[in-house]
C-alpha cells in the first residue's frame, strides 16, 4: 500500500514538473519554416481578431498575384502596446527577423526614430524618390505626396517608414454640439449662436421645466470630460474664447496668430475668460459638475434618460444614442454650429489629419527589391481600395449604373457631383478573410473618402434622415479652426527626454485645473497667478521651447 502511494506521488510530482517545463519550450517551431523557399517575402504583420485566415485570404492572394512572389507571415499581436514590446524584443535579439513590418500605426514616432537611427529600420529617403523602384508612390499627386513625405520624416531628417494617407473630415472635429430643439420650441426660443445667447437659453431651460415632469431635473450643459471622441463639452465651449485642440495632440499646445510661434493657450487671458464663463454657468446651475466625474456608461445613460434631462451636449459619435434613427431623445436634438464667443472667436477642437506610419523595411533583409516592390504595391489605386473594402463586385462596386442609384451626405450638400464607390457587403463589421482589415500603407485622397456610400445595411441614403450629418459637419465644423494649426510634433530623443515629465504632468494638470476653476474649487480671479506659477514650476517654458525647436525643424 505504502509503495503504491509512493509511486503515485512520484508520478504526480514529475508530471507537474514536466508539464511546466514543456510549456516553456513550445514556441520555437514558428521560425523553422523561414529557410525554405527563397522567393518568399517574410512579412511581420499586426493581426486583427476579425480576420479569420491570412493564408487563404483574398487580399493575400491578390497581392501575391500582383507581385509574382509569395508572402510568408510572421504574426504580430493586435494590441499596440504588445506590438511595441514585440518589436523592441526583435530589435534586441536581432534573430529570426522578418523582411518588412506592417504595424497598423502602432509604433510611435519616437520609437521609429530610435530604431531607424540605430539602423534596425532601413532608411528610405532615396528609395521613395526613385520612380523606377516605387512607381506607385511617385504617382501620388505631388501635393499629397509632399505631406506624406513630411509625415514620414522623423526628427533626424530621415524617413524610415511608409504611411497611410486616408484623410476624411468627420473625425477631425468630433466636438459636435447638440441642443434640445424640442425644449427651445416649447420655450419659444431660437437656437443660440453666441455664448451669451446660450446662457440665456440655458437659464430659461432651468426655470421653464421644458421636459414637463414638474421637477427641476433639467441639466443644462452636459458632457463627459474623460471622453476621447468629442464628449468633453468644456473643450467645445473653451473654443469660443481661444483655440484649444482638447489636449490630445501635442498636449494642447497651439500656434500664435502669426502661425509661427508655439504657445500654450491654457495660460492666456482668453482661457481665463473661458473659465470665467463656464464658472458663471456652473454658478447658475446650468453646467453640471458631472461633466468631470461621470464615466462613459453614466454619460450614455443620462443622454438617453426618459424624460430627457439634457439641454446641451457635445458628442462625436451618434452611437451615444442607441438606434439613433428611432431614438426619441436624439429626435429632440438639433446639431448646431460652434458658438461665437464675446470676441467673435468661433473655433472647435480640431487636430490635423496625420497619416499613420504603417510599414518599415528591416535593414537586415536580403530581399530588398522584393520588399520595396511589396511596399510600393500598397500605393496602387486599386490595391488601396481592395485593402480597405475587399473584393470588387462582392464587397464593393464602381459600376456606373449602381453609383447613379445612390447618393450620400456630401453630395446632398452639393460638395461633390457623384459617388465613386458603393460598399455592398458588411465585410468591415464581420469576421472575414477578404482583407487584412486595412493594415498597411495606402493612398486614398479626401475626395475618394467623401464620395463613397456605405450600402452594407441595405438602406439607401435619405436626405431627410437627421442622423446623416457628414455633409453638415463638413460645412459647419470643418473650417472652424485657425488657418495654421500645430501639427503633431516630432521630438528628437534628447528633446523628448528633457520634457518627459512635462508631457505626462502638464496636460493632466491643465484638465484638472480647468475642472477646479469651473466648479469654483479654485477662484478664477484669486488663484490664477498661483496656477501660472505652478505651470512655470512644472517646466512649461522648457516644453514650449522644445516644441518650438521641433516645429521649426518641420
Amino acid at each position, binding site marked *: 500500500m505504502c509503495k503504491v502511494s*509512493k509511486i503515485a*506521488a*512520484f508520478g504526480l*510530482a*514529475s508530471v*507537474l*514538473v514536466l508539464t*511546466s517545463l514543456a510549456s516553456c519550450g513550445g514556441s520555437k517551431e514558428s521560425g523553422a519554416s523561414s529557410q525554405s523557399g527563397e522567393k518568399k517575402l517574410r512579412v511581420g504583420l499586426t493581426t486583427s481578431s476579425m480576420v479569420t485566415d491570412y493564408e487563404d485570404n483574398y487580399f493575400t492572394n491578390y497581392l501575391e498575384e500582383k507581385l509574382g512572389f509569395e508572402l510568408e507571415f510572421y504574426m504580430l499581436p493586435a494590441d499596440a*502596446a504588445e506590438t511595441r514590446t514585440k518589436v*523592441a524584443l526583435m*530589435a*534586441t535579439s536581432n534573430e529570426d527577423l522578418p523582411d518588412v513590418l506592417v504595424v497598423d500605426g502602432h509604433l*510611435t514616432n*519616437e520609437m521609429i526614430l*530610435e*530604431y531607424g537611427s*540605430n539602423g*534596425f529600420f532601413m532608411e528610405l529617403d532615396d528609395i521613395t524618390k526613385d520612380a523606377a523602384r516605387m512607381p506607385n508612390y511617385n504617382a501620388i499627386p505631388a501635393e499629397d505626396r509632399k505631406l506624406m513625405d513630411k509625415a514620414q520624416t522623423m526628427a533626424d531628417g530621415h524617413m524610415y517608414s511608409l504611411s497611410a494617407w486616408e484623410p476624411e473630415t468627420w473625425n477631425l472635429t468630433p466636438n459636435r454640439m447638440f441642443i434640445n430643439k424640442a425644449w427651445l420650441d416649447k420655450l419659444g426660443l431660437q437656437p443660440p449662436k453666441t455664448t451669451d445667447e446660450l446662457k440665456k437659453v440655458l437659464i430659461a431651460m432651468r426655470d421653464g421645466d421644458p421636459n414637463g415632469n414638474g421637477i427641476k*431635473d433639467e441639466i443644462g450643459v452636459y458632457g463627459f*470630460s*474623460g471622453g476621447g471622441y468629442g464628449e468633453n463639452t468644456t473643450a467645445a465651449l473653451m473654443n469660443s474664447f481661444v483655440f484649444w485642440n482638447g489636449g490630445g495632440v501635442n498636449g494642447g499646445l497651439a500656434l500664435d496668430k502669426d502661425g509661427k510661434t508655439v504657445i500654450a493657450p491654457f495660460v492666456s487671458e482668453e482661457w481665463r475668460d473661458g473659465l470665467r464663463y463656464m464658472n458663471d454657468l456652473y454658478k447658475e446651475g446650468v453646467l453640471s*459638475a*458631472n461633466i*468631470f*466625474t*461621470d*464615466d462613459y*456608461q*453614466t454619460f450614455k*445613460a*443620462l443622454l438617453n*434618460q426618459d424624460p430627457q434631462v439634457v439641454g446641451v451636449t457635445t458628442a462625436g459619435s451618434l452611437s451615444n444614442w442607441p438606434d439613433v434613427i428611432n431614438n426619441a431623445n436624439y429626435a429632440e436634438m438639433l446639431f448646431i454650429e460652434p458658438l461665437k464667443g464675446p470676441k467673435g472667436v468661433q473655433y472647435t477642437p480640431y487636430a490635423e489629419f496625420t497619416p499613420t506610419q504603417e510599414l518599415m523595411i528591416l535593414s537586415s533583409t536580403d530581399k530588398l527589391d522584393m520588399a520595396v516592390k511589396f511596399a510600393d504595391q500598397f500605393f496602387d489605386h486599386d490595391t488601396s481600395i481592395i485593402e480597405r473594402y475587399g473584393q470588387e463586385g462582392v464587397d464593393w462596386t464602381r459600376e456606373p449604373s449602381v453609383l447613379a442609384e445612390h447618393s450620400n451626405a456630401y453630395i446632398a450638400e452639393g460638395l461633390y457631383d457623384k459617388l465613386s464607390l458603393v460598399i455592398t457587403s458588411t465585410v468591415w463589421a464581420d469576421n472575414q478573410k477578404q482583407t487584412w482589415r486595412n493594415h498597411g500603407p495606402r493612398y486614398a485622397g479626401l475626395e475618394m473618402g467623401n464620395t463613397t456610400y456605405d450600402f452594407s445595411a441595405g438602406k439607401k441614403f435619405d436626405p431627410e434622415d437627421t442622423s446623416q450629418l457628414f455633409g453638415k459637419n463638413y460645412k459647419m465644423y470643418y473650417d472652424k479652426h485657425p488657418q495654421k494649426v500645430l501639427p503633431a510634433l516630432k*521630438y528628437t530623443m534628447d528633446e*523628448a*527626454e528633457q520634457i*518627459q*515629465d512635462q*508631457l*505626462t*504632468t502638464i496636460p*493632466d494638470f491643465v*484638465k*484638472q485645473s*480647468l*475642472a*477646479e476653476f469651473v*466648479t469654483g*474649487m479654485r477662484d478664477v480671479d484669486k488663484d490664477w497667478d498661483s496656477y501660472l506659477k*505652478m505651470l512655470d*514650476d*512644472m517646466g512649461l517654458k522648457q516644453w514650449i521651447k522644445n516644441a518650438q525647436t521641433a516645429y521649426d525643424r518641420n
Partner: protein
Amino acid sequence: MTNRTEALPGNNKKLSKRIVARWQLYLLLVLPILYLIVFSYVPMGGLVLAFKKYNAAKGIWGSQWVGLDNFRKFFSSYKSITVIKNTLTISLYSLVISFPIPIIFALLLNAMICDKYRKVIQTVTYIPYFISTVVMVGLVFQVLDSRNGLYGSLYHLMTGMPAANILADGRLFKHIYVWSGVWQTTGYSAIIYIAALTGVDQSLHEAAKIDGANRLQRMMYVDIPAILPTASIMLVLAVGNTMNLGYEKVLLMQNDLNLNYSEVISTYVYKVGLASGITNFSLSTAIGVFNSLVNFVLLTLANWVCKRLNGSGIF
C-alpha cells in the same frame, strides 16, 4: 500518546539525509521554487534599469549607466511629494481600517448561534470578492451617482434637495476607495480567521463556561488569544502590500477633480512608463525601486513589532 516530534525520522540529521527521507515533499516543492526563481528572482535583475538610461537597441545590460539620475528626476518632479503623500495616506488609512474589520467580523460571526444564518451571511459577504475591479468601480460610481444612484435617490427622497456630487470632491476619494475595499474584501479576509476560530479547542470554552465566563469574556480570553498569531502574520503580510495599492482600482476611480488626491506611486509609474507617448522605462523602474524600498522598511518594522509583541513574525 507518543511524542510526535521524536517520531519524525532524523530531525537532527544532515539536510541532505532529511531531503532523501522526505523526497516526495521536496519534489513537489521544486515547482513553486522554480516559479519564484523564474517570475520573481530573475526579473529582479531588471532593477539595474533604475541606474541606467535604457536603450532598446543595446538591451538592459548594454545600456549606459547614469547613477542616481533617475531618482533625482523623480524627486525633483513637482508630482513626487503629492504622489508619495497620497500613497502613504491611502495605504495607511486602508491598513488601519481594513485590517481589524475582518477580525471583528469573524469574531461576531463565530459568536452567532444559528448556524444556517451564519452560513448565509458568510457567503453573502464573500461574494463581492469575485467581482472584477472594473465592474466594482462601475458599481461604486452607479451607487454614488448624485442624480440616479442609490445615494442620490435616497438623499433626494429624504431631503427633497438634489444631492451634492461626492465624486467631484477629491478629499472624499480616500474614503470611497477604502470603504468600497472594505465592502469587497471583508468576507474574503475573514475566512482565515473563521478557520482559526473553528480550530479553537472546545474544551477551553467549556472550562471557561464552568468558570462562569459570559460570551463576551470567552471572546476576550479564549477566541482572541487563539487567533492572535494568525492575526499578527496577516498584519505583517498586509504591511508588505501597503505600498502596492491596487493601481487598477485607483486608475479607474480617477477623474479631473480628484487627481490631486488620487495620484499614487503605482498610477504615476504607469503614466510615466507606458501611457505617455514617450516611454521611460528607467524612470518607471527607479520609482518602483523607491516604492519597494519604502515597503521593505515598513515590512521589517511590522515584523519586528510583531515579534516583540507575541513572539511570532514571518522572519
